[in-house]
């Protein structure tokens, strides 16, 4: 059997893909890779088409049970093969018995490890994405075996250095004013767009909690409604929550706006305690940016 034995799962590792679409009417959340930019590059490098990949944090250690072709993107977590440091944002060929490990975080939060053709797993509602709260998929754990199809060797592909993000850079995130923006006075909006916010402790695949200037809304709760990816919810304490891939499908807190989707991918790599700021973007410009992004990654989506 070809694939990986999990020697150590690290802090948190799950199987993801681009997500689960078409079921929010049943309460099934999108889930999928939190940093789609890094995930999509892992697919492009291997010429995969929306195959699954491992989304992982520090501590992951795997052993290949056959020759494998993989791609690594995302956070710099000190990638080592048999103890030798290797570059990421590229493909690697592994031989039977090789050990790949990610022991120390340098920058970013989440890495992506994809394998040519993807791991052999069952889809649930059309996707491989793991959503623990829905009982779909599992956290990887020591001793798991991830089965892959046997493949011929695959050429070395690299992401151009100019395309590799610098995760240490402070984030200026673009926001579309939307939803209940009229519940926020000009004064409150000004506060929101002119303050630093710090990423709080309770930040995960569901959402990132921010700490900073509290924002007041004229109404405290609304009738529950569908929550778009990147929604910025303002609960009673005024501290914004950015809702990401594992957000609940419905919610009843007012929302001041929505983060531009490509900026949601950036925040997925931001560490707890780091600072972010917001600026506005208009819908026409936002859509152009998304269209450009989608065109770049067209082949990885199919």
């Amino acid at each position: 059997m070809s694939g990986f034995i999990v020697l150590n799962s690290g802090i948190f590792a799950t199987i993801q893909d681009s997500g689960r679409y078409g079921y929010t009417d049943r309460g099934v959340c999108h889930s999928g890779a939190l940093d789609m930019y890094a995930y999509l590059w892992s697919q492009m490098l291997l010429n995969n088409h929306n195959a699954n990949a491992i989304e992982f944090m520090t501590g992951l250690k795997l052993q290949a049970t056959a020759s494998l072709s993989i791609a690594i993107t995302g956070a710099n977590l000190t990638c080592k093969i048999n103890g030798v440091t290797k570059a990421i944002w590229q493909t690697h060929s592994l031989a039977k018995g090789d050990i790949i490990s990610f022991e120390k975080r340098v920058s970013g939060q989440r890495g992506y490890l994809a394998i040519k053709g993807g791991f052999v797993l069952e889809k649930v509602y059309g996707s491989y994405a793991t959503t623990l709260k829905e009982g779909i998929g599992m956290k990887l754990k020591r001793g798991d075996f991830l089965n892959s199809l046997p493949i011929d060797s695959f050429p070395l592909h690299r992401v151009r250095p100019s395309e590799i993000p610098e995760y240490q850079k402070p984030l200026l995130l673009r926001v579309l004013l939307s939803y209940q923006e009229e519940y926020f006075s000009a004064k409150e909006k000004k506060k929101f767009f002119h303050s630093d916010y710090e990423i709080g402790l309770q930040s995960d695949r569901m959402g990132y909690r921010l700490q900073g200037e509290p924002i007041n809304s004229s109404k405290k709760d609304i009738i529950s409604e569908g929550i778009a990816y990147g929604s910025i919810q303002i609960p009673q304490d005024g501290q914004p929550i950015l809702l990401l891939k594992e957000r609940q499908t419905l919610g009843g807190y007012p929302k001041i706006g929505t983060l531009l989707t490509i900026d949601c991918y950036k925040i997925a790599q931001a560490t707890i305690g780091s600072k972010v700021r917001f600026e506005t973007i208009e819908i026409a410009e936002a859509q152009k940016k998304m269209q450009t992004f989608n065109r770049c990654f067209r082949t990885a989506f199919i």
Partner: protein
Amino acid sequence: MHIKISSVDTLIIYFGEGISQEILDQVQRAYRVLKSIEGIIDLTPSYNSLLLEYDIMLYDYQTIQKRVKETLLQKSTHTSSSTNKLIKIPTRYNQTLGIDLKRVATLNKLSIQEVIALHTQTIYRVYAIGFMVGFAYLATVPKQIITPRLSTPRAKVPKGSVAIAEHQTAIYPKDSAGGWNIIGHTEFDDFESFEVGDSVQFVEVV
């Protein structure tokens, strides 16, 4: 009806203020009609709104708004073939399983029997599904048994718990944290069959 931008590739359609069967029916009609448009990625209906995610490579926000408006205006020609069903939920109401039954009765100055009678006499409708998979928001509970959420949510509410929060009632499809008042328990397990618009009635079993 009014349409607002909700994100770079979603819009939200509001059908009115407040909660009523009439608004729910409008949401449902729109949900069914819009489902058939090409390039719709997700539709999330709720009490008085419908969130629509569209393929940004097919529409920009202006063309999708136009398309949605046109489609909804044509609705009269569309036979709204309702597929809504009635689901019966056999429920055991007692103070062992329904740990807040007493609280609901006391707060509303009713006997436990009266609470059960009021809860079972109403045919509820599924106004929304969310919070977790298969969690159907059922409304509207008779005003005599409207009860606020617990001030501190419980860390674990068992699967199958029948509960009330404000004007809504629901069944927990899974063990979960929750702040609703638990009044009974059901062995019902087909949570994936719930669809927005369905009717639901609780039936007391001993």
